[in-house]
């Protein structure tokens, strides 16, 4: 109940009831919207009752497109009412007219196998099986051998899969099965997780087997996940079990019914194919036209920059799900495209987009053109923007496009997309299967590492790529940040301000370079910094050498040494001096220089010196592929201030 402006008490659904009284056909759209948002059992039941009243009154419904109602059979090991009521209503409002028929309590095996059962009479389009949870338990002892427990889990899983296969074969229906809610109680204590036979672990095993063994026609209503999301103790209801053999708490039942309606809808709806993104304050913080390349927030320098980077990383994963990306931004084209071409922290590149519209035309217009160019329907488009006015324009002039209005906090952008349910995939394809095969081999390699500690094959399997680059303006904030923050892997711990670094970039006696590392699991970003200083015509000193600890033991050190020897040779330097200045925190690198082949020349409590003769140096082997080297514009002379870009 809410108080409205006039102080009169307004009850929820009063608006629906008034449309119903007037037999207004707008009733149906409002009912659908309200039902999609309804979170509780009571709300859904009340809406279902309004629906039935409207049907009885014959309120005209033009949103109905299907000629015959979708026939759904619900069978299982718990009482199926009122679950059936919730499923019927939410499927109706999500998909269209439905007819739901339920089996008897715990009679599903017979209903599936006996051709005289109601199932064979109904000829359902979809069959939902709620397997009996009482049957999903290990009856042996807590200390039984693991193999025995696994084979018991396997037979629970296989029985369900066989019943599903029978339905598929005999009735040609889509099959949805639910998996098992995990018991949320602390009992039996530590053995809950240590013993494969505990109810917790056993159900988890069966669920895992069901999911990974299910053929493509089988869809899973993941009660394990839904109850985790909802909270375990809120998901079960002992009382409802004893009173009327209910599957779960009414609140979880509401979520499960939503999930089933979503699955059924997904069987029919074409998935989204194109994601079109705004730029300013969507892919980066700030406005590129005003703030410029060095002013926008993107990358590891600031928390906001990191959030935008994470958002880009998630967007990038959509490509591998077969989704096309587009840009639609109110900007001058040259301004808009520049970060994609030149900003080192950008995850998304120009080539990731199939269409790039940066102009001053209305966005709806751009989207319509884009759909035309790509020969795709606007209903397969999702448009994402942080600006409510732009979202509104698209809603009005390109209403088939699904829109996402980003909230005020970029930290939550990824969550908004992950919760939108627009990019879900219902089954695995052949290609996926191939990839799975590759992963399987990969896994064998990893287990090799675990058993034999074969570091080489592990490093090789990471498929690492490194790239070196001279200091430039765009990297400057990150360089300054690392120089002033790194404590552990830092040989001299020499702090410098951003202005001092800029100064040094103009000084011909210095060469500063950075290294980035990526591997098959992703991009580690800028992870190492070196500043070399000439100390004579054939001598050079390593003024600064630091590295982010997250890439320790990845052979980054070896490649950095290779790189500064390469630079030294280009500049005809014969001796490179390495300095170690101990601090309270950098003892991890006290033996780094000797380990890299440097000879100690002075060992001291406060400062040790090492030397490396470039002539005798042999390149160190590593599993990192270097795809870019530091460029010395005018070799051996001055270093141009001009930033080098890829």
């Amino acid at each position, binding site marked *: 109940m809410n108080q409205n402006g006039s102080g009169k008490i307004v*009850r929820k659904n009063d608006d629906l009831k008034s449309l119903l009284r007037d037999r207004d056909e707008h009733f149906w759209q409002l009912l659908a919207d309200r039902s999609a948002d309804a979170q*509780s*059992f*009571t709300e859904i*039941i*009340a809406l279902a*009752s309004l629906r*039935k*009243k409207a049907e*009885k009154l014959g309120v005209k419904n033009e949103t109905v497109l299907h000629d015959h109602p979708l026939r759904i059979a619900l069978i299982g090991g718990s*009482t199926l*009412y*009122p679950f059936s*009521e919730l499923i019927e209503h939410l499927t109706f409002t999500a998909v269209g007219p439905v007819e739901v028929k339920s089996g008897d309590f715990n009679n599903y095996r017979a209903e599936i196998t006996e051709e005289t059962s109601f199932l064979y009479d109904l000829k359902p389009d979809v069959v939902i099986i709620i397997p009996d949870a009482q049957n999903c338990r290990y009856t042996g002892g807590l200390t039984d051998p693991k193999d025995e427990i696994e084979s018991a889990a396997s037979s629970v899983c296989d029985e369900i899969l066989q019943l599903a296969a029978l339905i598929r074969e005999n009735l040609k229906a889509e099959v949805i099965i639910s998996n098992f809610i995990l018991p949320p109680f602390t009992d039996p204590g530590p053995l809950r997780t240590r013993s494969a036979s505990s109810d917790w672990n056993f159900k988890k095993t069966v669920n895992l087997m069901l999911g990974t063994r299910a053929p493509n026609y089988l869809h899973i209503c993941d009660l394990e996940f839904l109850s985790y999301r909802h909270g375990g103790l809120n998901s079960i209801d*002992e*009382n*409802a079990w*004893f*009173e*009327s053999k*209910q599957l779960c708490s*009414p*609140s979880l039942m509401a979520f499960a019914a939503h999930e089933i309606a979503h699955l059924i809808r997904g069987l029919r709806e074409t998935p989204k194919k194109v994601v079109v993104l705004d730029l300013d304050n969507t892919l980066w913080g700030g406005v590129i036209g005003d703030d410029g390349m060095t002013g926008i927030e993107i990358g590891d320098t600031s928390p906001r920059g990191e959030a935008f980077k994470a958002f880009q990383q998630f967007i990038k994963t959509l490509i591998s799900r077969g989704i096309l990306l587009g840009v639609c931004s109110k900007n001058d084209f040259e301004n808009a495209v520049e970060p994609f071409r030149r900003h080192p922290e950008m995850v998304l590149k120009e080539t990731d987009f199939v269409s790039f519209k940066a102009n001053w035309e209305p966005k709806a217009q751009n989207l319509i053109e884009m759909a035309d160019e790509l020969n795709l329907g606007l209903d397969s488009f999702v448009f994402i923007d942080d600006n409510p006015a732009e979202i509104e324009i698209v809603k009005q002039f390109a209403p088939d496009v699904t829109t996402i209005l980003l909230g005020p906090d970029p930290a939550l952008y990824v969550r908004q997309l992950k919760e939108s349910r627009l990019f879900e995939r219902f089954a695995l394809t052949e290609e996926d299967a191939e990839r799975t095969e590759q992963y399987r081999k990969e896994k064998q390699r990893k287990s090799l590492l675990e058993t034999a500690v074969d570091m080489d094959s592990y490093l090789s399997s990471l498929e690492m790529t490194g790239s070196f680059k001279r200091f430039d303006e765009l990297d400057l904030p990150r360089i300054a940040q690392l120089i002033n923050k790194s404590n552990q892997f830092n040989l001299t711990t020499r702090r410098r301000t951003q202005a001092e670094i800029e100064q040094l970039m103009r000084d011909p006696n210095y060469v500063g370079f950075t290294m980035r590392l990526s591997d098959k699991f992703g991009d580690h970003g800028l992870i190492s910094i070196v500043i070399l200083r000439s100390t004579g015509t054939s001598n050079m000193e390593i003024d600064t050498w630091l590295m982010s600890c997250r890439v320790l033991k990845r052979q980054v050190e070896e490649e950095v040494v290779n790189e500064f020897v390469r630079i030294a040779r280009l500049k005809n330097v014969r001796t490179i001096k390495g300095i170690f200045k101990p601090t309270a925190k950098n003892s991890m690198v006290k033996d780094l220089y000797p380990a890299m082949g440097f000879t100690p020349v002075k060992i001291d409590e406060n400062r040790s010196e090492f030397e490396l003769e470039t002539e005798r140096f042999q390149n160190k082997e590593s599993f990192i592929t270097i795809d870019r080297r530091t460029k010395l514009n005018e070799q051996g002379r001055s270093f141009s201030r001009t930033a080098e870009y890829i």
Partner: protein
Amino acid sequence: MNKEEALAELQNIFDDIFLDEVTVTPELSANDVEEWDSLLHISLVVSVEERFKIKFRVGEVEATNNVGEFIDIILDRVNAAYV
């Protein structure tokens, strides 16, 4: 909460669930309403629990003979929560 308030809220719940209009009185019982079968009864009890934010104990509702006795349990639970 008193009996009148509980009765009024119960009327709202009945209006939400039953298709026919039912006037809720303390004397009303399932036998008086055609729609009120054992299935609808489950939805009714769940709705009452959710709306009044209470839990009945096992077997408790079954033992009541009419709405009046049902309200007695509701009030017992609701008011106990505020002690």
